[in-house]
């Protein structure tokens, strides 16, 4: 806002003060409904579960919701000594690192490819949106079926092509790295379109003159991509990754449906483990402690992603 406009605005505020609903408080009045809802549905329950996480509360023992200072951290220390917890944490870190990076590079590649397309770009963009019609839970069911060892599309195709025999069908959702790989494929399939569409929109909005100038200077295609496209796409990357980072926990739905963390915890993520402890085993105290750990990890992941982005923006 220019200073002139702001002084003008201030003068107007003065003259209007009589009938404005507490002008200084106007923004707070606008924020009020949102904060009321969020405090009731997110803030308060989270604080409550923080309290529960310090107690040994279990559903079947109603009297166990008691806070005793010396035992307050029992749930947390139990989790820290729990090999399943560490396994699920390791799986989650691996899962997030692989999916987010792969998604970004695939979306970047695909958006650059589509930006070069000379004919039928509109229909291609519509096709690209098809996976967006699927809810995470539908993606989970769909890929659970595709990777089913007896009836699944993937094995059927491999058998039909003669790559594997009837007897050597692959147990996609059971074998050690394959279960995780199947889940990663499903997650990428679900998230690729949004990222690609945003990066494509960004690429198409970049100023053509810059590329023409680069052509005059004899820049190679790679140089144009590296030194023009990539830096100018930064804000779009930022938006794509923000949307993505807000949705990391949606992986729960897919994993819950495809493998439910199994077999033998091979695909257990922190979210499925928290759900198992809290809801299925009704160990509310321990489950709340685990939930709080997932909250902290999700928030930390988001902040980490933001920092990386800010850093990359400064370098460029």
């Amino acid at each position, binding site marked *: 806002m220019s200073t002139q406009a702001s002084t003008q605005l201030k003068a107007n505020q003065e003259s209007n003060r009589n009938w404005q609903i507490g002008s200084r408080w106007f923004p707070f009045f606008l924020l009020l409904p949102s904060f009321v809802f969020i405090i009731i549905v997110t803030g308060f329950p989270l604080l409550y579960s923080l309290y529960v996480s310090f107690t040994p509360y279990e559903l079947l023992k109603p009297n166990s919701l008691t806070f005793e200072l010396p035992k307050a951290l029992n749930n947390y220390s139990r989790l820290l000594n729990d090999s399943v917890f560490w396994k699920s944490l390791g799986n989650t870190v691996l899962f997030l690192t692989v999916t987010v990076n792969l998604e970004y590079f695939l979306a970047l590649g695909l958006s650059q490819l589509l930006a070069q397309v000379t004919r039928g770009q509109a229909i291609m963009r519509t096709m690209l949106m098809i996976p967006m019609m699927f809810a995470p839970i539908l993606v989970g069911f769909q890929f659970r079926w595709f990777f089913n060892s007896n009836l699944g599309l993937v094995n059927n195709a491999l058998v*039909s092509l003669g790559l594997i025999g009837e007897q050597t069908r692959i147990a996609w959702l059971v074998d050690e790295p394959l279960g995780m790989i199947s889940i990663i494929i499903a997650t990428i399939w679900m998230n690729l379109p949004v990222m690609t569409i945003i990066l494509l929109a960004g690429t198409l909005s970049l100023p053509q003159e810059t590329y023409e100038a680069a052509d005059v200077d004899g820049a190679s295609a790679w140089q144009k991509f590296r030194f023009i496209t990539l830096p100018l796409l930064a804000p*779009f990357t930022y938006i794509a990754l923000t949307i993505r980072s807000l949705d990391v926990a949606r992986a729960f739905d897919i994993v819950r449906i495809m493998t439910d963390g199994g077999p033998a915890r091979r695909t257990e993520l922190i979210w499925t483990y928290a759900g198992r402890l809290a809801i299925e085993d009704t160990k509310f105290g321990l489950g709340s402690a685990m939930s709080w750990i997932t909250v902290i990890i999700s928030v930390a992941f988001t902040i980490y992603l933001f920092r990386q982005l800010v850093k990359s923006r400064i370098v460029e």
Partner: protein
Amino acid sequence: MIASRVSPHRRRNAIIINGFAWLVLIALALPAVWIILTAFRSNAEINASPPVWIPREITLEAFGNMFGLNPNLQQRVAVEAYMFNSLFVALTSTVISVAAGTLAGYAFSRFHFRFHTAAFLALMLSRTVPGVALSLPLFLLFTRLGLTNNLFGLSFVYIAVNIPFAIWLMDGFFRQIPRDLTEAAYIDGCGYWSAFRRVDLPLALPGLATAAIFAFLASWNEFQIVSVLARNNASKTFPPGLFTFTEQFTIDWRGMCAMSVLMMIPAIIFVILTQRNLVRGLTFGAIKG
């Protein structure tokens, strides 16, 4: 621009690029097409071994079974109830969350106040709280309040879940509207509220539509929280309904596909309606930088 400088070399490149793009997109769309196709096939073909790749007949049998039109079928899913519940919860939560999010987005985009950044950050972080972590304490509280298995309780939760993203979108949209317009309204004697209602709000209607669509789909698709808070058919929405369906019988894959198709309808409508605006809506913040 590329076509204007046609040389044989360039034309060959263009053909390779177009072909490759089609290949990638068809590969991406194939799983979805397969699901939709399966919903309209006969059961014998789906379970056949060796697999039948190309359908020989198209049938609406799976949908008939779902809506109880098959007299031989003893048990079936309560699709009508799921549909009604999903619509009710998604619509009410969309209207209220977008209204609240628009007000807050306006506050963030137009005003400077104490804790501006801190409040915005807190709202965004509230969105990163995973549903699993929310569902348990909400379940404990709602049991006490008698709000489990209650559609209003569920709507209330979804309102709060959808607000942060609505704020984020609306903040971006309001920033696109030139400030001069708002200031002109002040000079003409508008108060803050009437400037918002008469000038900024009408200009932000496309943004409002985008936010509404995202809120609707998020509520429509949500699974973690509702599967904990809704335990009976009278309050279950589509996702837990579909889950019950696959748990109840030995998995009927075709029935699952048919239910998926039904559940996708709002999303299909959304994709058709927003093809162009979606991208604009999501990237509004970026264009200004």
